């Protein structure tokens, strides 16, 4: 059970990092700011 939780946490960290990177890179490629609302 503990192992599953550990695997789950690692997976969440990887996936969140990956999708955040995807969001940032693909908006940046278009010259747009993904973090617009957070900067406001």
């Amino acid at each position: 059970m503990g192992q599953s939780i550990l695997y789950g946490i690692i997976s969440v960290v990887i996936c969140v990092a990956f999708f955040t990177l995807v969001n940032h890179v693909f908006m940046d490629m278009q010259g747009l700011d993904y973090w617009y609302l957070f900067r406001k």
Partner: protein
Amino acid sequence: MGLVTKKNLFSILALGAMIGLLLLPIIMALPLHAAGEETPVADAVKKEGDQGEKVEKGRDVYYKTEGIVVGAPAPKTTDGPKDYPRYNFESRVLLWFANQQHLYYGSFVLAVPIFCMVIEFMGVMTKDKALAKRYDQLAYDFIKISLTAYSLTAILGGILIFTFLTLYPAFFGYLSSIFRPVMHIYALLFVAESGTLYIYYYGWDKMKEGFLKWIHLSMSVILNVIGTLLMMLANSWIGFMMSPAGVDEQGRFLGNIWHVIHTALWNPLNVHRILGNMAFGGGVVAAYAAYRFLASKTDEDRAHYDWMGYIAMALGVAFLIPLPFAGYWLMREVYAYRQQMGITLMGGLLAWLFIIQATMIGILFLSTNYYLWQAMGRMRGAEKYQRYIKYLVFLLACGFLVFITPHTMVMSPAELKAMGGQQHPVLGNYGVMSAKNGGINVIITTTVLSFVWYMRGNRVSTVSWAKFGNIFMGVFFACAYINIIWLAIYGYYIPANVRVGLSVPQVATTLSCLFFMFGLNSVMMRGAKQTGPIEWGKISVRSQYALIMLATAFTWMMGLMGYIRSSVRLFWHVNEIMRDNSPWAYTHTVGFAANMISFNVLFFWISILFVFWLGSLAAKKVPVEAKAGVPGRVPEPAGSH
């Protein structure tokens, strides 16, 4: 030995003849081209030299380059028997019918040889001999269906030309004066296509092994090159009608045939149409397999047609996935060419047709998912996913409802006043692209998930990191959904110029699921333990109706998008160059258009059933395989699914 060498030599000659036929139109066109274009120019220059007269020049409406005027201006037509001879019927509707039927059949006969090429190649590469034979037989069955359809395509093309000549002589005269060399090349390429197709089909048995088989495969490549060129040439005519180039503002040809072919919308149309052909062709073949499945009398036949239906569906849906990107590129180029045309399409007169398109796309994906869930029912071990299907249904339903929601309602002035504005207070929030993109990406991600479950339905991973892999896949999909929905909501809180870019990371999320999860699944399934074979033929009857639904939806969508593409020209035969002065220079109501599309779809399906029936008359008996249900005995397609 000598006989084998003679056969090799003959087949090499046949291949060489096909390549020669393919190149012949280009070789013949070169001197004609030079003579056709340089002579008037040379004459004009000579005139200038002799008499000091000014050579008339014009500026290309699109490329803005200067060129010497070669052709006559676009005719200014008037409503009457000279420019618009007619029967006691709307000519435009007759032309619409002829054009649509030709396009349906043309699309089918272009797509099927591509399937044949892929499946024949799979047959050559597969190590399992029995499976290789099945693939080869499948490819042969596909090309057999294509032959009768090919004749019908040519007949319908003839009907289309005659309809143009008799009902729109002024327009067709103008178009053919500009595209004269292209039309000759088109006709010659038909010779090449026919020759190649007949040698490819009739030479199948004689060339089924060894070196000859590779020659045969090469023939399929050439067949598809010719077919693609045919499509691209025809696309140049409609590209010219929508976004003319190579002519001046009066429509006078400026001598550069490449400019006339290579209009702004030519390549977007080429890419979109080739993908659309494949998706449509896959749907039609899947429906053929479904029909044969439903009519099967033996378990072996049912097993064969179940398998055929799966492969055709998988190929069709594989090409459906990139189709929206091609469509997006086409729309973007329309907007870039003429912003008003883009607005007419998606923000004005034709906007509601795009709502219908959204509905059809939703139906396509719902049918695909439903078929996959039914298909999982014939796999022992796939029951583990059964209890989660209801959540996928929920996701699909929500995504579908959001995706089809319109932004503006069709309403009367009284309703407009009651609502207090153009936008419905509730629904108006949902009809924006931010939300709709979220909806469709959720639908596509769910389809990817259904495919992944299908591919691992009857297997258990035996890799050492299987537990981590399974958890990672689950978390990846969950995070993908959350990211897509987050971006859809985020769009509401940022300005439009930033929001418009959010569709790209949304799509990237969906494609990440597609590529990475398919890849990860393939790696995890290496050496996997099978819990039971796929029991081909044991699929439910409902699933075959889902395949027929898929094919019908593809056909209807093709008719709809073709109508949209044609209507965007509004009252122009050639956009901003040659005006449509016929009595039918108006846009039909959405209801009329829908009825016409439905009639075209119905007519096509009745006629293609005739084609299928013809194909079954001379059907070769399919090699009988071992009965399904015996684990490990039933040969499975490559990649297992």
